């Protein structure tokens, strides 16, 4: 029996390779995801350890642990400046340094901020001693006086800067020229996990980044031989309320956790795509094994006739699957390494530069890769293997020529409908009842499986209709292609189902993207009354001075500055919108449902309907809040508005904002042009005023809409790219099925050739069969995708009303691509078919 299995494997290398390809690509995706995230995690970990390793203790405001939220506001809780001297006096403290930080950008040769939309761009004070907090000088020295900066070695290198030369920076004001006096690293890394870091002399940093003169943190080295815990206790005893002392170990732990959290989302997303790829692969493996079992009916029957038991037959098929799965797993792991390299390059292209260390392949990755390959393949082979055991010995004697027609399946109809229904119910639970990702994924998977179960029943009628024009246009070869695609509905349907999954998801994402774009566009049209929206391209705060500059222009009637601020409410961090509430409705259409924005001035706050509901407050209630710099305050709820349109939950007046926030930075400015000023002139005047502020742009409503669309399109494009792999796997499946079918129909092809079918006609016939299978897959997929899209839009109707838009252009393009890809998938099998020796039909074996 082993001999038969092994020989069987060796005899069908091509079939093996094609089936394995499905496993390989799936496993590669899984392994690649693990390798990439492990590698990233390790480099983050390295940075975390290096930095924390440079200090022993940190004094910081309570509750300001590793929060990665960037936000437009620099406003956060601080450590009083007076504390530094007290800490320095504590017995056992060898060195204590303050840290103040903010946003600072280096301007590149083209006048654009380095880092763009990527990771943060930080400004920090230089430590008083090199090596403190992991900061090490690579070249030159640390800045000591005004107008000097040091920069992370990575940016120095990639921007081709020279230590000793002048560079242009942007840090909370207009452009400035400063002298680059050194390049620094952070432990072993050349930058801070991708962030650009500018170091300033302490006084300058304090002036730039700390409006109150207080510090972000104080970092401490303890004396050699001193007990860390004891020193920590002593420091804790001198610090004021709202300030805490943590050890470097705690810092490492917190930061590691935070990084793991962020990376976890990333790796879950990658693994979800890997799951889709594997899911598609399963269809192909099932199909391949089904076909080969069907082709080996006589072989199995003969084995049974000479005494092989059912279990032995089963084992034989499963062992074949197991070997295949392991081999696929191994090759997939190797490919996964390549994939990780590719993905890393892709991330680098998006601005996330990671230290170019070796990739990290954990034993877990290898084990998971192999197990996934093995389990998926063997599980997929179970149904075909069971079918093989049902082959009767007597079938060895019968001619295998007559294909068994697919059973008219009531069972299939019931099972398929049931599974589809379960899937839909799960989806509804996931969407409406907040059943979570598991319900959604399971539901989508169940719908796909259900439709796949039903698809053999659909294959005949659908192909029959889709094939009609082909048969009409191409005559006999088209007719034969159509007949061939219909002759074994289960095979055609399973092959097409693999494609259905990929196309279904693409269709869904396409619909979602189009609906989102359209709805965001609608919202801009409805809500934006302003003529120009001025903001930073890098999601940073912009200097408040720009507002004055723009207001002073003769071409503008209004330049309304908008501020964001963080505050604490019921122990949760929230953001508020600080704006001139008298005029905010001139730039945004805000529907006030209760109260009035006019009465907001001092002491008042406006809430969105949803926030009011969440916080359980109404008009006239008092709200207890806490601001980071100025502490507790009580605000009156004076207005409730429909916040769905502007996506801001709390609003206060600018004048009032200034009372609670010490920094004065703006995140956007809404401009109304003066009467009689043409849009071109207005834009020209504003652009000219903004020339001094790189990275700040003015967009009219069309540009705002296009910008939103571009952002959605970028995400949609990325998802398409990742789903592309699943679609590639599906087409591999078509190649595989057709190649096997050609093999099975050798005699028939020989006969066709004998009675006068040309090679070209043979090739065309097979290619059109391929096209029919792919069009079937695309049709099913688009059907499912449309349904998913519709369902999601319905489910979101209350919280986030979307206008359902079906991107017909894109979907038509998908069909065209499917036809082309179908033709391509048919090329190899068609070539094989055309090479079939005419005599194969004539000579009886």
């Amino acid at each position, binding site marked *: 029996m082993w001999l038969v299995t092994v020989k069987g494997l060796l005899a069908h290398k091509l079939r093996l390779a094609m089936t394995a390809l499905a496993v390989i690509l799936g496993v590669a995706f899984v392994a690649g995801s693990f390798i990439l995230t492990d590698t990233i995690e390790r480099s983050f970990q390295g940075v975390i350890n290096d930095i924390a390793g440079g200090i022993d203790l940190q004094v910081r405001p309570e509750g300001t642990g590793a929060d990665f939220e960037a936000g437009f506001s620099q406003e956060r809780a601080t450590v009083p400046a007076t504390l530094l001297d007290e800490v320095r006096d504590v017995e056992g403290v060898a060195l204590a340094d303050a840290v103040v930080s903010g946003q600072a950008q280096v301007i590149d040769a083209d006048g654009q901020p380095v880092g763009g939309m990527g990771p943060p761009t930080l400004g920090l004070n230089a430590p008083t001693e090199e090596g403190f907090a992991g900061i090490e000088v690579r070249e030159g020295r640390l800045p000591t006086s005004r107008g000097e900066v040091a920069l992370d070695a990575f940016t120095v290198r990639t921007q081709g800067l020279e230590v000793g030369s002048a560079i242009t920076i942007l840090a909370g004001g207009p452009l400035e020229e400063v002298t680059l006096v050194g390049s620094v690293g952070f432990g072993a890394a050349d930058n801070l996990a991708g962030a650009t870091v500018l170091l300033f002399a302490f006084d300058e940093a304090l002036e730039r980044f700390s409006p109150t003169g207080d510090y972000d943190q104080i970092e401490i080295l303890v004396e050699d031989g001193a007990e860390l815990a004891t020193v920590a206790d002593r420091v804790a005893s001198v610090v004021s309320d709202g300030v805490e002392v943590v050890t470097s170990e705690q810092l490492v732990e917190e930061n590691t956790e935070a990084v793991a959290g962020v990376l976890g989302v990333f790796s879950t997303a990658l693994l979800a795509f890997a799951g889709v790829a594997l899911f598609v692969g399963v269809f192909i493996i099932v199909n391949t094994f089904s076909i080969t079992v069907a082709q080996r009916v006589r072989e199995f029957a003969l084995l049974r006739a000479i005494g092989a038991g059912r279990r032995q037959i089963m084992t034989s098929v499963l062992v074949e699957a197991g070997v295949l799965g392991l081999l696929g797993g191994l090759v997939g792991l190797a490919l996964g390494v390549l994939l990780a390299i590719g993905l890393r390059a892709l991330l680098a292209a998006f601005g996330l530069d990671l230290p170019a260390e070796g990739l990290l392949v954990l034993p877990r990755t290898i084990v998971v890769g192999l197990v996934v390959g093995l389990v998926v393949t063997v599980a997929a082979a179970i149904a075909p293997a069971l079918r093989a055991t049902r082959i009767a010995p007597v079938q060895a004697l019968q001619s295998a020529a007559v294909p068994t027609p697919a059973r008219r399946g009531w069972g299939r109809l019931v099972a398929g409908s049931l599974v589809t229904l379960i899937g839909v119910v799960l989806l509804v639970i996931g969407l409406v009842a907040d059943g979570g990702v598991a319900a959604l994924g399971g539901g989508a998977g169940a719908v796909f499986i259900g439709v796949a179960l039903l698809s053999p029943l659909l294959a005949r009628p659908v192909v029959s209709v889709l094939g009609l024009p082909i048969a009409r246009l191409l005559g006999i070869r088209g007719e034969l292609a159509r007949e061939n695609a219909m002759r074994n509905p289960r095979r055609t349907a399973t092959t097409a189902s693999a494609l259905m999954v990929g196309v279904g998801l693409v269709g869904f994402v396409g619909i979602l993207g189009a609906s989102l774009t359209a709805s965001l566009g609608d919202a801009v049209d409805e809500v934006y009354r302003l003529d120009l929206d001025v903001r930073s391209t890098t999601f940073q705060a912009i200097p408040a001075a720009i507002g004055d500059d723009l207001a002073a222009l003769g071409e503008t009637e209004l330049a309304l500055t908008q501020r964001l601020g963080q505050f604490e409410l019921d122990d949760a961090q929230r953001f508020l919108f600080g704006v001139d509430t008298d005029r905010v409705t001139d730039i945004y259409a805000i529907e006030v449902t209760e109260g009035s924005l006019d009465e907001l001035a001092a002491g008042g706050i406006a809430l969105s309907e949803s926030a009011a509901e969440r916080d359980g407050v109404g008009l006239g209630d008092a709200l207890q809040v806490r601001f980071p710099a100025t502490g507790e305050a009580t605000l009156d709820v004076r207005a409730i508005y429909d916040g769905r349109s502007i996506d801001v939950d709390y609003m206060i007046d600018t004048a009032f904002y200034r009372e609670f926030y010490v920094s004065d930075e703006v995140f956007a400015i809404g401009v109304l042009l003066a009467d009689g000023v043409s849009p071109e002139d207005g834009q020209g005047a504003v652009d000219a005023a903004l020339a001094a502020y790189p990275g700040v742009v003015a967009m009219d409503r069309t540009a705002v809409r296009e910008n939103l669309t571009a952002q959605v399109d970028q995400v949609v494009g990325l998802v398409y790219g990742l789903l592309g792999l699943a679609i590639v796997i599906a087409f591999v499946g078509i190649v595989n099925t057709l190649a096997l079918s050609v093999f099975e129909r050798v005699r028939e092809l020989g006969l066709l050739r004998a009675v006068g079918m040309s090679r070209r006609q043979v090739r065309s016939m097979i290619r059109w069969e391929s096209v029919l299978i792919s069009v079937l897959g695309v049709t099913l997929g688009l059907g499912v995708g449309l349904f998913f899209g519709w369902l999601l839009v319905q489910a979101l109707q209350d919280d986030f009303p979307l206008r359902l838009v079906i991107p017909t252009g894109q979907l038509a393009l998908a069909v065209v691509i499917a036809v082309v890809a179908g033709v391509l998938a048919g090329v190899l099998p068609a070539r094989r078919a055309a090479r079939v020796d005419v005599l194969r039909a*004539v000579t009886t074996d």
Partner: protein
Amino acid sequence: MAEVPTAVRVAASATDLVKVYGSGDTEVRALDGVDIRFPVGGFTAIMGPSGSGKSTLLHCLAGLDRPTSGSVHIGDTEITGLGDAELTRLRRDRIGFIFQAFNLIPTLTAAENIELPLRLAGRRAEAGWLDRLIDTVGLRHRLDHRPSELSGGQQQRTAAARALATRPDIVFGDEPTGNLDSRAGGDLLGLLRSSAREFGQTIVMVTHDPGAAAFADRVVFLADGRIVDEMADPTADRVLERMKHLELGVSAPDAADAAAASDPEVADGGPADPNG
């Protein structure tokens, strides 16, 4: 060896045809200098012991296989030098085939199978011809059936109709009755003979059944890749007699094969002497 009078038009011919399989120790001369002509309208049976080269000859004549040397003409066309595309067109338009088994495309109906060569050529049959053919082969009531729903005899008659549909220069059959019972076989052979007589269709058929050979106008005997004899107006008895002599001259294993081929059951089960 009786010469065919030169005045008779020739549908196909082979000159000094040699086909060698393999090389060195494993070399087999399947055809060893065959010269033969098939006059238009003639029904020729090719007989010979198993392994004598009958099928090889047929394949070379029909352009399904290339001879090692020598030449083959279909009508005036020398086919030995033709490329695949030209050979394909030749087979489609000027040659008909009936194989021993697997003659029909399983996904096409009987009618579609009959029209297949015409459809491949993008041609329509002459008006009335297909109808007449279908009636002749007696398949009127089975036209919409697929091969799996037809009996063996019906399948072979469908194949015959397909072979005749294009009015080819010549129809080749390789043991077309090999898988049929005697009645179905007799029906098919009668059909072939009448198409030769009534439509002037040239037919060349390989068989190892003397009864089948008796339907032909002439029988050509092959042994070891050479033509060893010819018989005009054959009867089953005379052919059987001739075959027995031929088989005496061959080696032991092949003799056993040949004995099986001329197994009494097959011979006795053959149709009655068509000339009787």
